[in-house]
């Protein structure tokens, strides 16, 4: 778990930039509708991920499957802060982000099922959701792999003088890989419109932030690039949303930003990980700090959430997820005949379309005696 208590204010050492971009000290700018919408979003993601876990045990889903359980408030707050024209790059733990970005849950579930109607046509699976329409530029399975790509997307926006921004998500453990350093330096050096968001869930697989990062207050690493940064409570969708809005505003003005959102990972690293390395107490503490329960209480106190509404929202989420699973189950498997359709975008001669059992030279002809005579 992160070393210091999450704060809603930006890093003190960043005053110059704070004046410019921090909205965190102003009164909440979020409407009541949005506050309830966050809750709906969070519940939907929770139910979706629970359903995905079940489908995995039913062998409907294969490969690796990483869930956003515990991260729902961060997902809702971040995605709501984006404009439609902005771009999102994530790691492999991205189902919730894809849904919150507006991709139909049924297409996300179909991708998990590896079906033709999946958001990546069944070619990507859990780790590789992509949807050009919503500018959701992909989940990536190589730790840190999305950082250079996202940085390059920001470079392209800057090259064209566009007003869009890029949001690049990563986990806490990812801040220790070389690409993190190379990319933040490049983004700061070139004033690129990008917000890097560290989803600090306290763990990279079984390794804590303290075991992996010599500076465990991860947002402070932005100082190596004179980049503004802040840490925010990832269990509070409003705080996340405001911090992200401020960060994006700065990014659009050519000031890339590093935002750290602190939340907890409720289950194992992936569906198959029992997380034995975690003590009973830790697990308990996490359950106690469940962002959805806490947020429900808060909205309740604010009079925005009634028991009826809670039931309604739960039922709606359950229905959506059930429909998504049905849709996925009904969707066809990709045709084997399409196996060679996506190796190259520009067709070229001599591209290999050989199946494993095929001979390289199928009907390798044999020379006639004449031929041999002629050539010898």
């Amino acid at each position, binding site marked *: 778990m992160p070393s210091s208590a999450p704060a809603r204010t930006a890093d003190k050492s960043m005053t110059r930039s704070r004046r410019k971009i921090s909205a965190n000290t102003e009164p909440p700018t979020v409407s009541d509708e949005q506050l309830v919408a966050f809750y709906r979003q969070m519940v939907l993601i929770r139910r979706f991920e629970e359903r995905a876990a079940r489908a995995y045990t039913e062998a409907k889903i*294969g*490969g*690796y499957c990483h869930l956003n359980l515990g991260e729902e408030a961060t997902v809702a707050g971040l995605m709501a802060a984006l404009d439609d024209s902005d771009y999102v790059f994530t790691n492999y733990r991205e189902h919730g982000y894809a849904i919150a970005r507006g991709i139909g849950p049924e297409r996300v579930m179909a991708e998990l099922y*590896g*079906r033709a109607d999946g958001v*990546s046509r*069944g*070619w*990507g*699976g859990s*780790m*590789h959701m992509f949807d050009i329409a919503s500018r959701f530029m992909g989940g*990536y*399975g*190589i*730790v*840190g*792999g999305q950082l250079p790509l996202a940085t390059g997307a920001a470079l392209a926006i800057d090259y064209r003088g566009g007003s869009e921004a890029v949001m690049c998500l990563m986990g806490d*453990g*990812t801040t*220790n*890989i*070389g690409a993190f350093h190379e990319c933040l330096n490049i983004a700061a050096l070139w004033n690129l419109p990008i917000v890097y968001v560290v989803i600090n869930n306290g763990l*990279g*697989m*079984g*390794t804590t932030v303290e*075991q*992996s*990062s010599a500076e465990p207050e991860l947002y402070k690493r932005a100082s190596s690039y004179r980049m503004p940064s802040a840490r925010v409570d990832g269990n509070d969708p409003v705080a996340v949303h405001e911090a992200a809005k401020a960060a994006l505003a700065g990014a659009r003005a050519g000031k890339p930003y590093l935002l750290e959102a602190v939340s907890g990972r409720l289950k194992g690293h992936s569906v198959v990980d029992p997380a034995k*390395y975690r003590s009973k107490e830790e697990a308990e503490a996490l359950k106690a700090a469940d962002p959805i329960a806490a947020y429900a209480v808060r909205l309740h106190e604010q009079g925005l959430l009634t028991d009826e509404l809670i039931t309604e929202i739960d039922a709606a989420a359950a229905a959506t997820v059930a429909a998504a699973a049905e849709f996925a189950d009904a969707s066809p*498997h*990709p045709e*084997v005949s*399409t*196996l*060679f359709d*996506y*190796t190259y975008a520009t067709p070229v001669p001599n591209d*290999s379309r*050989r*199946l*494993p*059992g095929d*001979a*390289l*030279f199928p009907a*390798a002809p*044999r020379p006639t005696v004449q031929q041999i005579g002629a050539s010898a």
Partner: protein
Amino acid sequence: MSVITYRQALHDALRSEMLRDENVFLIGEEIGLFEGSYKITAGMLAEFGPKRVRDTPIAEEGFTGAAIGAAMLGLRPVVEIMTINFSLLALDQIVNHAAKIYGMFGGQAKVPMVIRTPGGGGQQLGATHSQNIELYYAFVPGMKVVAPSNPADAKALMLAAIRDDDPVLVLENLALYNTKGEVYDEDVPAEIGKAKITREGSDITVVAYSRMAAVALQVAEQLAESDGIDVEVVDLRSLRPLDRATIIASVQKTNCAVVLEDDWLTYGIGAEIAATISDGAFDWLDAPVRRVAMAEVPLPYAKPLETAALPSADDAITAIRQTLDAVARRR
């Protein structure tokens, strides 16, 4: 002899080398508290402590390079790279440093280290997590690369790799971890650089390594029964150095060959095997050397597509039968 899994054999080799030589230590991501992504190092942290079972940050280049530097000072690190796909991030350290240091400095510094890493597709892990890129290491002078296909070799080759004074990449395989076989209870290191005839036969030579060498044996038994074909299986075991003599001797006996590999065909490991046979056994060969390999695509996630793209026992059988037909046509 005991019957144990490939996983257990690797574990046993690591453990007894740790007990034998205190310069041997393990380093990598999630090998300690998490007990390894594929549990090869289960129990090691508890037994040897954090100094000798070193969990690292996610920094393949950094920790692999650190192991190289530690080896230069005489330690014998065994690096786990979670899967061979991630080793690309450490490739500069391995190819431009580990493999060069002994020669580039005129033989003054040795790099006695082992890199353990599994390859293998078929787990629906998608395009970036299912690759077989052992070629990247087998191609490099200064590296040694071994690829055990069974528990006995897994133990014997791991022992040899750890005791070798050069950087050795031990190619493991996700699909083999749970396979079982007889293994010596004693520590008997294998000889790096030697292939093995794992089944004698007179009709055709099948050359393979790692997972496909196991498939080759299964296919051989099947064809003996179904078609009465007597297949000789050459398990390469060592990709660098490559034991050409054993391969050629077999083909000079059978006069034809099929190569089975899990990587992509064009420029894959099998290309060298086929070229070697076609050269060294030129006058003995009665049909072209056939290669069975992966379809040349980024491996898709969807099961039917993945299955279609990966080489299978049936593909091997087809290739063997068609090759023997080709031989018959020419005799």
